[in-house]
Each structure stands twice: as structure tokens, then as C-alpha cells.
């Protein structure tokens, strides 16, 4: 069945690549020869050797702190172009009618469909009870969904028993039960919810309007589930025990940014939105970028000597930054780019000894140890020399300036 489904989807995909009006131009040109089917493209790419640069994003670009991120996002919303696809609320009645006729609706297309679906939820609340499920929420469970359905009066007969899907389906199968509208955002993010819904979807008084975002989301549904429909063919009034969806598909391309859906993504990581988030980057023990607040907290906890050492290093680094080319400083937006602003270990040791901070190597290393553990000071072997170590603070210039100012203020 799986292979059947795969080929089916595939066939329709290939077929539809020509079909929608978006691609009509190439068709009308008669340039079918130049059309490169996706499998051809895949093999072309797979056979050729990939040549990419050796730059590593996470090393070259420092992740932003939450404050920086929010500030930048506010600015970005001014500059970035966010298209608005015209939408007419009169579609709601049409959708509601399709739900009435025994279909469930699945919305696909690019862009967050959340706000439109929320409006639709409010629209249908005049026809029955509504339960809205944020399936993109990482901690959503089937139990949550059932708990919210349980708030429909009469569903939960006894307070102690746990509500199950079967009981919900049974309840809404009776002809005098109210209508329940289930609005599910990003159904494809939670296969468990999708599975639970498959056993509710054929109940005559439960209506489902859900959205999917992923490219491959249709693979979630097996052919028999897609074909199943409400209203048993069978004469008896027993509730059907079949599972299925009975979807009608609607293209709801909004082009709206997935702000709500990506709330739980890690903004500091390029794989932050990936579903396999469990993989933690172990090469970088300090998770996330060094923030100013974090630095202040660490500095508040260390000894006066250590503080002195830090401000010494900071002062030297700022000095270096001032003396170097302005454009270079500005382009230094990754921790490793700041390496050239750092001090060698020997130079730092000399300075520290002169300032009576650390008289020997062991003492200095002990002081630095605290900072290194918290990522306040980063070290690397200096390029070009053998074994000589460079130390620097992975903070942007203006932040470092502020921090150093704070430290000096405290000291005086």
C-alpha cells in the first residue's frame, strides 16, 4: 500500500508540475524538452561532486542573543517584504457547508494559515462547539485534545473515567449530540494527533478543518484513509469503527510568515526548526551565544582579581579594536573573527604580572579557568606560530565597551 501511495503521489506530482497556471508559460513555449524532471535533477546532482567552501556558519557567524534578535526582528519587519494574499471571509460559509455535507477540510499551501483558521474557528462557533489544537506545539498530546473536547457539555459522563477517542466518537455519533468542530493547526507536525483524529473524523457530528505545511505531508495518510467517507453505507445506525479522513483539499496559500509555528524553534541554531532537534551540537559546550547579562552574572560571582583580569583583557581587546581598521571591526561578526583582536597568552601573563593580578602561570590559569568554563573567554592556537595561545572575549565591540564600563564603574 505504501508503495502504491508513493507512486500515486509521485504521478500526481509530476503531472501537476505542468498543470497549475504558475507553470503554464513553460508549457506554452513548448519547451518540454528543457524541462528537467526531479529525478533527473536528483541524479545529476548526486553524480556530481559537491563543491562548497569550507566556511562554517556557526563558527563565522555568532548567534544573536534574544535581545539582539528581537531588536533586529523589529527592524527586519520594516525592511523585509511580507506579501499579503487577498483573502475573503466569504469562503467561511462555503467551507462550513462542505463540513456540513460530511467532508473534512485540509488546507495546504505556503504560509501560515493560523490566523485564517482561527477566524474560521470563531465563525463556526456559532454552529457548534469548537476545539482548536495547536499541533505544532512541541508538547501537545492527544490527551490535551481530548481534555478540551471533554469540556463540551455532556461528553464526559463521569469525572473519574478517562475520556478516550472511542467514547468521543460514540458520543458524537448519536443524532441528538451537538456538532463539534476541530480546528487543527499544522496537523503534519504531530502524527499522533493525526492518528487520533483519524478515528474521530468519520463521526457524523465531528467536523475537522486542519492545515498542513510540510511538502511531504500527504504521505501521512494512507490511500484507504483518504478514501474513507462519513456516513456508513450500512443501514444500521451503529457508529462506524473505521478510520479515515474524508478530506477535501483546499489551497490556502497565505505567504504569511510562520511566526507562531516557529515560536518553539531555536533561533540560534540553523537546525533549530528541524524536527530532529534531539541532536545537540556537542562540539560547542557553551550553548547559545554569550549574552551581556550572562557575562554580568558570571562576573558578579568571581573574585576581584578575576574581575580585574577580565577588564584588563577587555581593555586590551578594545584597544586593538580601535587601532585596527574600522571596516574590519565591523565585519567581525563571528567569534573567530575577533581572534585577531585578542592577546597571546604570554602577553596577557606579562600584563597580569605587572598589574599584580597573577604572579605565576598556575594562578593565571586558575583565574582564566572560570571564564573559559562559562565561555567568557575563548582561546585558540595562534595561526602561524607553534603552540602560542590567543585569548579573547567573544563579544561585540560595543557590548564589550559597555561591559567594561560597568566593571570599571563597580571598581571605583
Amino acid at each position, binding site marked *: 500500500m505504501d508503495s502504491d501511495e508513493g507512486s500515486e503521489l509521485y504521478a500526481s506530482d509530476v503531472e501537476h508540475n505542468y498543470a497549475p497556471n504558475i507553470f503554464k508559460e513553460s508549457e506554452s513555449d513548448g519547451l518540454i524538452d528543457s524541462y528537467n524532471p526531479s529525478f533527473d535533477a536528483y541524479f545529476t546532482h548526486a553524480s556530481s561532486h559537491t563543491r562548497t567552501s569550507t566556511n562554517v556558519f556557526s563558527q563565522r557567524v555568532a548567534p544573536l542573543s534574544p535581545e539582539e534578535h528581537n531588536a533586529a526582528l523589529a527592524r527586519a519587519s520594516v525592511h523585509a517584504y511580507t506579501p499579503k494574499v487577498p483573502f475573503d471571509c466569504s469562503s467561511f460559509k462555503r467551507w462550513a457547508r462542505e463540513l456540513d455535507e460530511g467532508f473534512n477540510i485540509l488546507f495546504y499551501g505556503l504560509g501560515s494559515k493560523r490566523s485564517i483558521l482561527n477566524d474560521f474557528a470563531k465563525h463556526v462557533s456559532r454552529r457548534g462547539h469548537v476545539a482548536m489544537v*495547536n499541533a505544532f506545539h512541541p508538547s501537545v498530546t492527544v490527551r490535551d485534545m481530548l481534555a478540551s473536547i471533554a469540556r463540551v457539555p455532556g461528553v464526559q459522563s463521569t469525572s473519574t473515567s478517562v475520556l478516550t477517542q472511542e467514547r468521543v466518537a460514540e458520543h458524537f455519533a448519536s443524532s441528538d449530540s451537538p456538532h463539534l468542530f476541530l480546528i487543527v493547526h499544522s496537523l503534519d507536525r504531530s502524527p499522533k494527533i493525526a492518528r487520533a483524529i483519524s478515528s474521530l473524523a468519520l463521526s457524523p457530528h465531528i467536523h475537522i478543518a486542519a492545515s498542513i505545511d510540510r511538502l511531504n505531508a500527504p504521505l501521512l495518510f494512507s490511500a484507504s484513509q483518504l478514501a474513507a*467517507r462519513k456516513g456508513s453505507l450500512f443501514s444500521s445506525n451503529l457508529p462506524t469503527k473505521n478510520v479515515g479522513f474524508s478530506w477535501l483539499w483546499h*489551497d490556502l496559500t497565505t505567504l504569511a510568515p510562520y511566526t507562531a509555528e516557529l515560536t518553539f524553534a531555536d533561533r540560534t541554531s540553523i537546525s533549530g526548526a528541524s524536527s530532529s532537534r534531539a541532536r545537540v551540537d556537542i562540539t560547542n559546550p557553551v550553548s547559545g551565544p554569550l549574552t551581556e547579562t550572562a557575562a554580568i552574572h558570571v562576573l558578579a560571582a568571581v573574585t576581584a582579581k578575576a574581575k580585574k583580569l577580565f577588564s584588563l583583557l577587555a581593555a586590551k581587546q578594545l584597544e586593538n579594536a580601535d587601532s585596527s581598521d574600522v571596516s574590519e571591526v565591523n565585519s567581525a561578526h563571528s567569534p573567530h573573527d575577533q581572534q585577531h583582536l585578542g592577546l597571546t597568552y604570554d602577553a596577557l601573563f606579562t600584563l597580569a604580572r605587572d598589574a599584580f593580578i597573577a604572579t605565576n602561570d598556575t594562578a593565571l590559569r586558575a583565574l582564566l579557568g572560570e571564564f573559559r568554563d562559562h565561555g567568557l573567554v575563548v582561546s585558540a592556537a595562534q595561526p602561524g606560530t607553534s603552540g602560542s595561545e590567543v585569548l579573547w572575549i567573544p563579544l561585540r565591540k560595543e557590548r564589550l565597551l559597555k561591559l567594561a564600563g560597568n566593571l570599571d564603574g563597580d571598581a571605583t
Partner: protein
Amino acid sequence: MTVDTDLEDVNQTTVYIPFNASDDTGVDTAPASLFPERDFHQGCHLRLQACRAAWGKCLERMQELIHSLHAPVVESVVEQVKKCYTDELPGLPYPELPVISVTSSSTSSSLFDEISFRLEENTDELFEDTNDHFVTRVFPSDCTTLTGMMKVIVSGFVSRSPTGGQDIKRKPSTSLAAYDIALLEAWYRAVCDTRDDRHRRSRLVVIMHDFEQLEPQVVQDMFEICSSYISRVPLVFILALASPPSPSYIRATYPHSLLALLRVRDCPFPLAQTSLHNILLETFFDPTFEPEIMIGPTTIDFAVEFFTRHNSSLDGLLSILQLAHMKHFEEPLTVLAPAQVLGQPKDAAKVLLTPDAFPFLDALFARIHESTLIAPVEHATSWRSATADSLLSLVETARETFRMRAKLLRVAFRLVLHVRQFLLVQGHKTVQGDQTVPDLMCLALRGRLGSVYGHLCSMVRKLPAAQLEEFVREVHDFFENAPEDVKAAEDEVISRVEIAYKMLGRDVSAQDISSPLGNWLSEYFRLRIVALEDAPLWDIWYTGSMPFPSELINPSPRASILAGLTRPLDYVSPGQQSGDDEDGDLPDISILFKGYLESAKMINVYDWFESFAVFLEARKRRVGKTRIPDGADETSRTPSKKKGKQKQVEGEVVDKNAGEDEEEWLMEVQVRFIRALQELDYLGFIKHTGRKADHVMRTVFDSPE
């Protein structure tokens, strides 16, 4: 409103909105008309009702047909279950586990509702024919592990009380584990004791849906466990298979050692194609059944194509026809489809004479005057005497005309099929042609069946005497069985067939009969098999070649997402041709996607970021230039990407703020990049392989350009 804030709050996993029945419920539930310029308000409601009624009639008919299709299969499954433990082969070394495989791909899943109902109902106790078995149903999603599967099977039965009374609460500490088959055994013993069933006639039936999706290893273990308990727990398995009976999926997948434990019985279903053709034929081309709405060739084509290529399920066919009905009743004129939908003729006229309905009336008036309902000579004068009543009576005439025309078409079409079938049986292979029955239906509806019946009639003319006699008898019987009103309308051809029938007895050469008969039939077909579109006001009762909204059933989400990414502006202003994308505004995600399409299999995220930044800067500079011609250098200056190599600062005044601005700009670019990247990730365009540091893999290789 609190509901609003709750709905917006992303931290809530679920939100419940209570039923808000207070205001305007039911007042305005009908969707707005697609053709407001020739519709009236009440029409929407009436059409909705008419649609329900029409579809209800059609659905009922099809359900009957599907039901009769199911009946023999259900019967045989029930029979198999009943005798599976009594009718065993003697001399087996060990009892076999009865397994019944049902090929269910072509039908609707309600087949199993029917089977389980039949197995659980209490039938005549008098004849010792009790069917009170226990049925539980297993879906692949619950059965990924052996424990899970056993739990589903055991608890499926055990959750019912053996005495038929209240549910029993089992304490976990004193009860066996929910996946232990010994629990099922104990339960079954209790059931037999309470029912006083010494012969232990009740069977425990497990229906396994989508059997191919189950993990073979798990199923194998499960069968082995159940097989060891056969003597105490009379389990019967019904497997719902989607694959054809041969080559058998079960035999191909499971090892011989397991198959030796099972006794597999097949309950094959009639061929999917044939049942589809029969259902279409019996619903829309049956002389005794008149659907309210005749479906057109495009819908038939789509239904058949979808059935054969995508999903051979009768449920799917029903959905398609329902959608065709719903679409058909979008047309304002269809409010007139059922007789007396507007009430009695007097009321109808009253409804149509409200100011609201004037546009509709206008459209109807125009349509009637274009049609052949009014003779051309009357045209000049009749419009003056037109009233709502006269219009309605004309519609009534048109309805009768259409109904009769469609009916005669059906009869004639059935005769064509009949003749074709007869000739095929007689060994005339050429009449088969390469058209299937639905193809012929479409041709008939379009009135283009000429070549087919032409060929058939020419074959009839050449029939040898032995076959001719049988043929004439068949045709004669065909018309004998036709409904009375058809007989009255077709008296000419019937009398001719009568003549041929009578001539059979006399001493006439075959040629003398067959030749005129062929001509008569040909003429009859030519007269009756005409496009339904020729009837006046045909679009009220006939969907014609209205395109079927196929994207509702068979969508292309992938193409839609790709289109949204590559050509967002087509969605923003539909209908307008967007210019060169380089100049227009693009959302960040589209900019990033451009880079995606141009890159190789693996993408270095940093390179991608660079190209994104370059693109944004170029645009920023352009915007800066157009907006502020002077003094723009401060904001639009590019920060050099490659340090030390591209110093383009010469000649420019290094402002104190410049650094800060650039810092901000860089952060902004970074934020926008990460956001767009994560959106692409969210959509499934990126695979994090971890093979190379900060490289991602493309998942899409389509080239939509």
C-alpha cells in the same frame, strides 16, 4: 475577548470555544452565490435543499448497489467464521489458526462494519444459527510492537463485560497484564460460563485493517502466540488486504513455518473495474431509475480516471459524485431542478416576483427565449405576455422534455450495450473496440456514439440465420421489459422489431430480416443518442462538460508550495503577470529559495548566508538610491564581506554612526536569514545530515522554472 487572546496564544496546546448559539444561527448559513448577478437570496437555500435531495436519491441508489455487491462477500465471510472450528480437516497434527483474507481495496471500508455487525448480531436461536461472536478491530497504527498489538487484541475483547452488564474495573495489581493472552482466555471462559455455552460456539474475531501496513515480524510473533492458544481461545482473523489475491501477499511475505500454522481462506471481491462500471451503469443508465441530476462526461471521465489511477475505492467514487452534485447546484438556475421546489406554482410565482429575485427572473427569461421552447414565430409577440407563471410552465415543459430525452437515451444506450454484448458472445471480437463502458457512456452523452452503433448495426445486417433468431428474440425481450412510458414513446421501433420477430417464423431468408433490422436499429440509435446539451434549459438537470473540481480530491500541495516560493507575486495579485522578479519585491523565504534552487546537492549554510546578504544589500542599495538620491551613502554602503580584500571605503567619509548602522544591518540580515532558513526547514526542504559541518542537504530537486 478572551477567546481571541486564547486563540492567538501559542503557548496553549488546545483551546475550547463553547457553542455560541445566541445570535443569528441558521439565519444565513448558505454560502454566498458564485453568480450574484443572476441569483436571489432565497435561491441559495433552496438550491442547498435541492442538492441534498438530489444527492440523497443518487446516494441511496448507489448504496443499494454497493450493498448488493458486498452481500455475497459478507455472507461467505460469516459462513467461514461459523464453520471454522467445526469443519476441520481430520488428521492434522495440530489445529490450524483460521484466517480469512478479504481483498477490500476496491470497495468501501464499510464492508467491515457490515461484517462485524453480522457477526455480532443475535440471529435465530431456534435454528442453532447464533452469530453472537465477538469482534474487535485492529488498525496498523496501534500495532508497531508485539506488546502493543497483543494489548489491542486482548483489550479489544476484554473491555466488554463477560456478563453483559456493567464494565468491570480490573486492578492492575491483581489482574494479568493487558497484553497477556491468558487474560483473554480467562475472560472467554467467563463468557462461556455466563452464556451457558457448552459447545463454545462464540468465536473471537479479529479484523485486521490495512494488513499490508503491519510489520511482518510483529504479525508473525502474534500468530505464533495465538496459535498456541487455539484450543482454549477460538480466535479467527479476518485480514483486510489491499493487494490482489494473486500473487498472494500473505504467501509472499510470511515464511512457510508460519503459514503452516494458519489455514488461509480467500474471499475475493469482484473485479474493481467491473464493479465500478456496473455501478455507474446502474445509477445513471438504468431505464427504471431516474437520477435527479444526470452527470456529464467530464465527471465520468474524472471518476474513472481517479478510480483506476489513484484510489480504487467506491467511497472515493461516492465523494466524487457528491462533489459533482454540490458543484452543479452552484448554478442559480438549478433552483428549478426539482419539481415544485418553490412550493405550489402560485407560491413559486410569488417567490419569483419579489424584487430580490428580479435578476434571476431576467436571466431565466433570457435563457427561455434563446431556447427552442418558444417557436420563432411567437418570439416577436410572446415576450410581452410573459409572466412568472408562464415562465414556470415553460420550465415545466423543459423538464418533461429533458426527462424523457434522458430516459430514451438511457434505454437506447442500454440497447447498444446489449447488442454489443450479444455480438461479443457470438464471437464477433471486432465489436469490442478499445472503448470501455464508461468511454461509451461519455460518447453517448455527447451524442457521438455513431461509429460504434454504426459498426454494430452493420454486423447485425450480416448476422447468419442461427444467430439472427436469437438476436431478434433478445431485442424483442429488451423492449418487452422496458417501462411503459418508454414503450409508448418508442412504438415505432418496437413495432418494427415486432415485424422482424414475426417474420422469423415464416420462410424468409435471414438477409431479408437482418438487413432492414440493422437499418431500423441504426435509425433508432441516431434518433435517440443525441447530446443532452441540445435539450432546452439542459443545464438545470445535466452537469454537461462542466469541469470537475478535481483539486478538491486530487490536489498537488507540492506544486502549490513550490509555486508560492518561486512566484509569490502571482498569489498576491492573481491575474496580473508579474514582471521580472529581480526587480520586484520578494519575501525573504523566496530569496533564500532562489539560492536553494541554484545550489548543488549539499548547501554550505555560510555560503548561502553570504549570497542572501549580497542579495539583500543589492536591494537595499537600490531602494536607497531611488528613495534618497543624496546622502544615501551612509545607509546604503555595503559592509565588505571579505575582510581586507575588498576595501571600498576609499573616498567615503567614515561616519561615527556608520559602524553602528552596519552592525544593526548585519544583525538584521542574520535574523532574516535564520528565520527564512527555519521556515524552509519547517516546510521540509532541508535535511540536516550532519555529514559536513553546517551543511544541509536539498530534499527537492524539481526545477519549477
